[in-house]
């Protein structure tokens, strides 16, 4: 055991000195400043037949310094094992191989004195193999088992990275499972066909009804100045009395809470229609004195139509909204001329004389329209025709709520 240990120590000493040998490629100017891509180490192999060292530097190449150093360390340990074995077999003359440091491989640099052609490199491999065979032969001669690690480890290592040696022709890979596929949502467009600006609910501008509360809600005010309807200028024949100004109409139970800045359509409707209702009441009163029953009947008929018209007009004013032209016009129509101007705009330039008759019989007004709705919807009809049609429609029918909405727009157009 003792001689073996001594031999081992000797081998270690030799090996350490061997590691310190400056076995390196001389620097090459053309490679200076470039990152090193290939590393190697030089080795002086001990040739047992001549007991000389042969330096080889074309038998290893590595892609990284750590890989080079790992391989060098492995090779070093294997060589130490050989030295240890041989010295243990009383071959004290056996020398350890000398390993240089791992460094940038200049054998690939054409300008380097160490540059190697492929043939020269193959020759170095051949030389290494020659020495390896001699070492093997001596090991076997020294009774090293032929299938021992000592003998096997003499051989150059095989590539250990499986992917490096994959097949050159591969099959088409199977599709990756759908779960692993992800497409970016940004690839797609978002629809603009949906109108996102439409509010989720319509704006509801309906006012609340004012509920009369005893002792709290003041009685609805009478219009400060209700202008007297223009008297019928001349009584109808046969002592038809002229219409008298009407007393202020008593407000309905319900008045409307008006917007502070805009007129309340209800108030405007009340004021306008009440005044006009009184006007027609006056005509009716006067009409009782008409002697000609035929004329009287026509006057009554015309007044009935007017009452129907005013009722409809009230609904339309209320429904037209505080900002409508109709409400605005009716609201400012305090003077008789203003009222008649509205009437002319609504029902035609020939309507005012019938609207505010000087004679009760003048209230008779035949707009000459048999199908007023058709005329109103007819884009080719003149404004005058439409105005007559509006009179006829309002005087002779009770428009539905939908018709009232439509009439609102018709009237807005006529008031432009």
């Amino acid at each position, binding site marked *: 055991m003792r001689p073996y240990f001594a031999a081992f120590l000797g081998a270690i000493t030799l090996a350490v000195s061997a590691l310190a040998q400056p076995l390196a490629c001389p620097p090459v100017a053309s490679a200076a400043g470039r990152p090193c*891509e290939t590393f190697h180490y030089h080795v002086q192999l001990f040739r047992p037949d001549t007991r000389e060292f042969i330096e080889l530097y074309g038998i290893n*190449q590595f892609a990284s310094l750590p890989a080079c150093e790992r391989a060098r360390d492995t090779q070093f340990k294997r060589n130490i094992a050989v030295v240890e074995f041989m010295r243990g077999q009383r071959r004290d003359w056996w020398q350890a191989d000398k390993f240089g440091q791992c460094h940038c491989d200049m054998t690939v640099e054409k300008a380097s004195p160490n540059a190697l052609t492929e043939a020269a490199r193959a020759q170095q491999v051949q030389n290494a193999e020659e020495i390896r065979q001699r070492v*093997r032969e001596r090991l076997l001669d020294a009774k090293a088992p032929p299938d021992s690690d000592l003998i096997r480890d003499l051989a150059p290592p095989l590539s250990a*990275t499986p992917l490096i040696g994959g097949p050159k022709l591969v099959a088409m*890979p199977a599709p*990756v499972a759908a779960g692993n596929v992800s*497409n970016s949502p940004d690839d*797609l467009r978002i629809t603009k066909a949906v109108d996102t600006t439409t509010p989720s609910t319509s704006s*509801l501008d309906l006012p609340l009804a004012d509920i009369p509360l005893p*002792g709290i809600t003041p009685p609805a005010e009478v219009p400060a100045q209700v202008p007297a309807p223009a008297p019928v200028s001349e009584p109808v024949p046969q002592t038809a009395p002229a219409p008298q100004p009407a007393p202020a109409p008593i407000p309905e139970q319900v008045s409307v809470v008006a917007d502070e800045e805009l007129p309340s359509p209800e108030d405007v409707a009340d004021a306008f229609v009440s005044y006009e209702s009184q006007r027609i009441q006056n005509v009716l009163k006067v009409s009782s004195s008409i002697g000609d029953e035929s004329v009287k009947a026509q006057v009554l008929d015309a007044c009935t139509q007017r009452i129907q018209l005013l009722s409809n007009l009230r609904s339309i004013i209320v429904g037209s909204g505080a900002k409508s032209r109709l409400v605005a016009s009716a609201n400012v129509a305090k003077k008789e001329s203003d009222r008649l101007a509205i009437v002319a705009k609504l029902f035609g330039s020939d309507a005012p004389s019938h609207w505010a008759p000087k004679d009760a019989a003048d209230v008779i007004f035949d707009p000459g329209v048999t199908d007023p709705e058709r005329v109103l919807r007819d884009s080719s009809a003149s404004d005058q025709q439409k105005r007559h049609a509006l009179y006829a429609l309002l005087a002779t029918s009770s428009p539905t709520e939908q018709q009232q909405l439509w009439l609102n727009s018709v009237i807005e157009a006529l008031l432009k």
Partner: protein
Amino acid sequence: MPPSEEFVKAVYFGKKFADMKDYANAYQQFAKADGLQPDVRGVLYNMGVLLARAGRFSESQAKVDRYNQLFPAGAEKPLVARLQLELEFERELQKKRQTDEEYTALFTRGRFLYVKGDLVAALKLFQDAEQQRPTDPAAVFNQGIVYEKLGDLPKAAERFHRYEELEPDAGAKASADQRVLGIESEMSDMKTKIICPFCGWRLPIGAMWCPHCWHGPYLTSPSPWSSRPCTDGATATRATYFADNRFAKNDSLPCLFNGTMLEALRYTPARQRQVQDARKAEGWTYSGDVIQAWHDRQGNEIRYVQGAGYLEKIISPSGGELLLFAAHRADAGIWLLDREDLVIDGVKYTSHYTFDAQNRITQQQVVYQNAAACNDVITMTAIATYANDLLAGLKVRGGYSGTLVQGSPRADWEANIVYSYDDAARLTKEELAVTSMTKTYMEKPYGFARQEVSSLYPEMRVRKPIERMLATGDRCGMTGAIVLSNPIDLRPFYAFSPNMNLALPGGVTRATVSFTYPDSYKVR
């Protein structure tokens, strides 16, 4: 009966709250008033209005109905009529909103399915969307995107053209135009390119190797590479024989491609993505379409060092291996290897290729150290001959000089491979014959090697060729009781044929590969 004080207060408060636009509390007060004195006209109406303002339209409608029932000619009638219209309008609005929401939901669901990768289902939803609103460009655009992902480029192009008709925005139109141009270029590539099934790179039809991973060969024209299609009725059987004509064994060679190689590798964007996705799943990374590196969680790494036109090195920083490549450009997109390192079963083979004017390999020289046996440095050369554009034969020579210790053996062998085709240019037979194998020991082996050699070749005499080498194969050494040999290794000559991709076991000197094809199989 005069209203109660509580009623008066509730109505008053209700109005005050309404004035403050606090409609919820206003409603509560009117509801309270209604509870104290039911069915007061104004209260009913006000409740209807406040409920409508709160978006409680069905409750508002109930109040309107109640009002109309009790007060058909009530003073609030015009207002109630308008409220009724408002409620109907709200219903109309709700209906429109629901339709819009349903339409938008098609896009949301389609988007979700698209992101998830369920392209067919996503496409169906965008088609439904187009049916509902045929002029919505987004539905058409998204169909185009999905068709593109599905690889149906003609349909994608048609969809994007339609999109351009519908889209009013000039910028969006221009971007779609660029996309159409890209698709048309892709469609052109589908006619003229194949993909490398390893890295997914697009190659011109006719390229032998992929220049970014050096996988291949991709010989899509009639060649031995089209001899093993994956179709019914196609078979490839390799029989090997010993030197004395004894049968060694039969190998049924697996098929290589569905249909011809050209059909299997023809470029489509989907196929390219399929390859890239598969590699990425394995740990490979890309820069654009160029493969770059692989690594695993254990720290193993492989880097592909891409030069200006082709892959110059494969390095393994962890394992230290280094494979070098040199190539020249032969045609647009076609690179031919001049030098290649190849690792098979851990042994590195270095090949040098020579090509003719038609970019066909005329010669390949291989050098390797057979670390799997006796570490001899072996050189092999293959010379190809062609007849009528078809590979007709391959003459392969190999040999090495052993070490002095081994007795300086000189080994040489020669083999011929002959290729036969039918009238349709389909390979029918590939026959290998080792025509010679010689080994001569120039010196007496040393020491233990002498014993080894005499046990390997008992009749060995220095400078006299070993007899019956063909029958024994090239035995070079022993490890323990195991005999090591240098087989005739044809694997580095992979570029000529996939069918003789073998190292001949000792004593095997003949191999025949026979092929059958269905009548319908065409290689041209």
